[in-house]
């Protein structure tokens, strides 16, 4: 799932050309390696509507959502995307019926326990970002375990945002900096964007800012996901519900992304 390729620059023109041919053979549908986003973020939306359309109880859609994750992640790994993040549960989602919240939390547990394990075995790094103190003990334990186990992996870094809010991410950074100012570690006028970014949840991520943000189910808004980090992100909206958003749809999104970025270069 994760193949590390090292390209040796060659003085021989023919060898370099073959190299290029081989690379474009590996990439599907005309995608260009040099225009590949480093970090793709997905706002997971539409699980319930997908299920209701099929005559099932809404919350069963979350299982279908989990099922589509692995094919998507396999494609991301193949394309050597460095970071993929998923907005799984927002702080606003606590307002949903208790039954649905409990069901969704169980799906997340399976996600970390079973899928997390599989991703780790393929060399991917798994992280959970959000206010974990409000999550169940089981979830906190599973999250700590998979993060610890996969910390040193060098494959695709996969981030699940659970109980996450872009505004609270910023507030946390603010509080941390306030304490540092109080302790004399820094002066308040020394706070700049780089220092600020080092206090956000994404401080452990090599590429904290998504190049491409995809939101499914036709809603055209950001809904409090990674507000700071998405300052310059390309936003892609699709009407498909998340369980229907497969690898081919991701390729379409990437083609659109590469098309726009090509024009700007």
């Amino acid at each position, binding site marked *: 799932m994760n193949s590390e390729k090292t390209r040796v620059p060659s003085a021989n023109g023919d060898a370099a050309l073959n190299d290029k041919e081989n690379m474009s053979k590996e990439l599907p549908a005309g995608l260009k390696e040099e225009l590949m986003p480093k970090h793709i973020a997905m706002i997971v939306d539409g699980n319930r509507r997908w299920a209701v359309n099929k005559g099932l109880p809404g919350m069963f859609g979350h299982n279908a959502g989990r099922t589509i994750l692995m094919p998507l992640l396999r494609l991301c790994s193949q394309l050597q995307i460095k970071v993929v993040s998923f907005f799984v549960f927002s702080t606003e989602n606590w307002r949903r019926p208790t039954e649905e919240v409990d069901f969704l939390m169980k799906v997340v547990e399976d996600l970390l326990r079973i899928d997390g394990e599989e991703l780790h075995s393929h060399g991917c790094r798994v992280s959970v970002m959000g206010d974990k103190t409000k999550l169940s003990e089981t979830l906190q334990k599973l999250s700590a375990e998979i993060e610890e186990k996969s910390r040193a992996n060098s494959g695709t870094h996969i981030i699940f945002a659970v109980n996450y809010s872009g505004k609270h991410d910023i*507030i946390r950074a603010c509080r941390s900096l*306030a304490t540092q100012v*109080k302790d004399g570690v820094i002066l308040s*006028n020394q706070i700049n964007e780089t220092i600020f970014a080092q206090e956000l949840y994404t401080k452990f991520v090599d590429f904290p800012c998504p190049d491409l943000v995809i939101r499914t189910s036709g809603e055209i*808004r*950001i809904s409090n996901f990674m*507000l700071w980090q998405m*300052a*310059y*992100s390309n936003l892609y909206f699709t009407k498909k519900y998340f369980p229907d958003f497969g690898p081919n749809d991701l390729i379409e999104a990437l083609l659109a992304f590469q098309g726009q970025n090509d024009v700007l270069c």
Partner: protein
Amino acid sequence: MDIKQRTQMYTSLSSFARKCIFGILSVATLPNHIAFIMDGNRRYSKQHNLVDGEGHKVGYSSLMSMLRYCYELGVKYVTVYAFSIENFKRSPEEVQSLMDLMEEKIEGLIKEESLVNQYGVRVYFIGNLKLLNKSVRLAAARAMDATAKNSKAVLLICIAYTSTDEILHSVEESCEEKWDEIKVLNDKKHEKDIISVLDIERHMYMAVAPDPDIIIRTSGETRLSNFLLWQSSNCLLCSPSVLWPEIGFRHLVQAILGFQYNLYYLNKQKQT
């Protein structure tokens, strides 16, 4: 009928047609705050073989038209992204020409017959104004003073602005304000209570307006480019493919219909 009469008749007819359409739109909820990212002026210049900088002038008249439509419709707050801090990185000639244009237009705003006085609009300049040169800064201060008594609508012009800079400034101000409380903090447990979301929001440059309902970015780009990140969390994002100088009445109507549909759909969701 001579040209002048014909133009007058055309203007009156368009105005009447707009009033009818606004009447229809007003049946459902209207947005309270619309924001515009005015993208595509330079591309428009290139496409029409204009001198560099002419695109911005054409863009300015598009802006005046859009403001007129918004205030006629009764939208209370309009925000425009006039100049990002990132734009300072452009060539010095372009930056200077943009600054000159902005100073000229800001002076225009204060005149009696200007649009802002016609519609009772209060003007705010939002951003890190210290980064502007003295004459633009003074012109902006004069414009804010001159329109301070207007109360029917509000125009927020984001100049030398980025969202990340706004958030940082707000964080700095919050820390300074709460400095005394933080200083005597012995118990780490109470750290969380000192600074809250409300404190940060209070110190934002944009605290003078509610969050936008719609953000419209022209030229088909689908990114916020560091504009109103904090405030756009639940806002509808529209990206018509026309360049800013080509934006027209129908694009505004489309955005508002999209907003109304979204609102209806969201309310329906809440009920299920």
